[in-house]
């Protein structure tokens, strides 16, 4: 192991939400100066390179043997300088650790990607980190050994810092793939053992690939549950983290003289933002984090976003004078049928970057209030009783719900009918491509439709147009090329903006090498207030629209005052 290799300057300031301190890369003598380089107000994340602490299979060192493993000193320095910090415990191979984090004594089988290539990632110091399979029984044994030793260390030294578990992912062709996905012989052997144990009389007609998915998920749960049960008082939860530039394809591309383009990185960042994913750009070199990338990272994955994500602050509910991310639609499904039924195309054409996907929702007061303005789309096939009850509650709380009833379990369908009768809610039904039912309760709107009937239909565009027309969303209309990107934010008005209901900011980025134009039609609900933070870009206001010119790698922010809220219908 060599030290003093961390090439990051000043704690990598281009990424405020990503204060990851790679203590094992820096000589312990330099820790203090490194820590002082981090902005004082921001949380420092300390990834636990657990393999680095293995002195032998039975002995874990936190500083007794090697000073670079001295976590007591690290904690003392952080505390002495008043820094907030949390540990990040990998629950999968992590691409910024040698061996993916696995200790040398347990490193036996290299992890293999679906295409058959070894899983390896180039880090920002141009080291090639090879991932070791987590399906090797020795790895799990080592992991639990580390957990016990780490818990004893935290207890002995009364370290009161939280621990977040992290499963790491890479992006390939728009798909998020876990570093736990592994096609190595270690996986195959583990799977055979699992099948023999679970299905002693044979698997019958069960599909092998489905069984492999279940096995993978059970192994993932095993690592998570072990961490949860050992680190009980310190444990915060599991955070999925997608690491930019870490896929097998990225490894090849980043090794080329041309590298991976800024356009590709930007596209991925937008995808991750829309899928509510937390990211790490820790593998990227300063040369790769150039042009617009630092701005997008700082603007859209900021420190306050990190604080909210890692529960250092409560989710923002009421609007404040600080900008926060804004969207109009939230989709609780990743079903490919959304694309087939034309919804994603419609949203891309009309509400680009104003919709987000979520895996689940935490049904808390903060979440309900904070997302009141968003139309929420659910698919019946993915719902259970609890989730369905919460959707009905959202409707009663005045929210706008779109429910695709294809594959809605019969039990839930009956529950819906009973709910409507009990609450004496009348519905309006109409047939347009599919049977649509509209229910109203106070401000609440519930629209049910059968998405299956939209698939492949030429009228699908008109269908979505009519549905969204009913919701009467007020939003400036943006016309721009596919390889330009935008993000919306919202804030409350300040003292001199009382004519407006709120202020919306849109950030435009042009990561291409061409000059591009954007037109924003403000319609009758928005007034252009100002342009800000422009870089190689300009904007001019022409009756009810704003015209923007963005040179290559140009960016600009535009503020609009929202001055009229039309009621629903």
């Amino acid at each position: 192991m060599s030290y003093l290799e961390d090439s990051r300057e000043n704690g990598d300031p281009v990424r405020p939400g990503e204060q990851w301190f790679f203590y094992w890369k820096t000589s312990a003598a330099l820790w203090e100066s490194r820590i002082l380089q981090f902005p004082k107000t921001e949380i420092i994340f300390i990834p636990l390179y657990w393999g680095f602490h293995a002195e032998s299979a039975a002995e874990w060192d936190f500083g007794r043997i090697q000073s670079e493993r001295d976590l007591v000193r690290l904690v003392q320095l952080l505390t002495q300088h008043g820094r907030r910090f949390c540990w990040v415990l990998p629950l999968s191979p992590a691409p910024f650790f040698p061996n993916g984090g696995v200790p040398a004594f347990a490193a036996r089988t290299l992890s293999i990607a679906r295409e058959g290539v070894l899983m390896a990632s180039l880090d920002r110091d141009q080291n090639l980190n090879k991932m070791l399979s987590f399906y090797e029984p020795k790895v799990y044994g080592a992991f639990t050994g580390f957990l016990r030793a780490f818990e004893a260390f935290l207890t002995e030294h009364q370290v009161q810092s939280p621990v977040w578990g992290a499963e790491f992912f890479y992006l390939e062709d728009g798909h998020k793939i876990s570093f736990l996905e592994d096609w190595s012989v270690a996986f195959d052997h583990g799977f055979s053992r699992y099948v023999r144990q679970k299905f002693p009389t044979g698997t019958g007609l069960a599909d092998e690939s489905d069984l492999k998915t279940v096995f993978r998920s059970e192994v993932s749960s095993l690592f998570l549950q072990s961490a949860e049960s050992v680190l009980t008082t310190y444990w915060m939860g599991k955070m999925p983290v997608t690491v930019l530039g870490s896929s097998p394809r990225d490894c090849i591309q980043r090794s080329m003289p041309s590298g991976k383009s800024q356009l590709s990185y930007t596209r991925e960042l937008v995808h991750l933002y829309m899928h509510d994913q937390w990211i790490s750009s820790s593998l990227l070199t300063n040369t790769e984090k150039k042009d617009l990338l630092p701005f997008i990272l700082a603007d859209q994955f900021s420190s306050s976003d990190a604080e909210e994500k890692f529960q250092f602050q409560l989710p923002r509910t009421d609007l404040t004078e600080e900008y926060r991310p804004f969207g109009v639609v939230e989709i609780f499904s990743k079903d490919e049928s959304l694309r087939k039924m034309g919804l994603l195309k419609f949203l891309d054409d009309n509400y680009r970057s104003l919709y987000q996907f979520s895996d689940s929702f935490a049904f808390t007061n903060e979440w309900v209030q904070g997302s009141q303005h968003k139309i929420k789309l659910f698919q019946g096939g993915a719902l259970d009783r609890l989730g369905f009850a919460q959707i009905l509650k959202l409707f009663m709380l005045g929210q706008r719900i779109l429910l695709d009833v294809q594959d809605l379990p019969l039990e839930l369908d009956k529950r819906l009918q009973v709910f409507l009768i009990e609450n004496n809610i009348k519905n309006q039904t109409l047939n347009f491509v599919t049977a649509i039912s509209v229910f109203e309760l106070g401000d609440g709107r519930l629209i049910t439709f059968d998405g299956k009937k939209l698939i492949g239909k030429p009228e699908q565009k008109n269908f979505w147009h009519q549905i969204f027309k009913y919701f009467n969303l007020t939003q400036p209309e943006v016309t721009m090329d596919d390889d330009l990107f935008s993000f919306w934010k919202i804030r409350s008005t300040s003292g001199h903006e009382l004519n407006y209901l709120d202020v919306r900011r849109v950030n435009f980025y042009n990561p291409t090498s061409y000059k591009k134009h954007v037109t924003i039609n403000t319609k009758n609900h928005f007034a252009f207030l100002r342009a800000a933070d422009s870089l190689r870009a300009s904007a001019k206001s022409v009756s009810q629209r704003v015209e923007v010119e963005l040179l290559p790698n140009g960016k600009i922010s535009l503020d609009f005052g929202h001055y009229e809220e039309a009621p629903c219908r």
Partner: protein
Amino acid sequence: MPLTLIYHFRPSESLEASFVPASYRVVYFFSDQGFLEQSLLQEMSKSVPDADHDLLSFLSLDDLRAFGSRVCQEVGSGEVRLISIQDYNIGVDGARDLKGFQAVFTKFGETVVNEEASKKKGFLGKLFS
């Protein structure tokens, strides 16, 4: 501008009712300027009879060589290096850093020379001459 093609060999399989022949599937195909467009590769694969154009899968190593050579002609490259996944993995296993990783693409595999390139320049050759 040399090209690199990484392929996955799958041996033939006799399933219950059918026989699946051996195949050589293209996993990555790139130059030092980046990955080649999938649509271009699919189009070029049409020059090889019996290839699976969607999956970019070929029945023999000779077919794969012919395909590589055809792509060389199209983009004006002098050669393509064909590296099997097994060789790629051996190389990656032995590499420690960027330099070692880049060396995988020059140390392993076999080179197919595009004879036409010396006689005729493709569009990239014309550009960079």
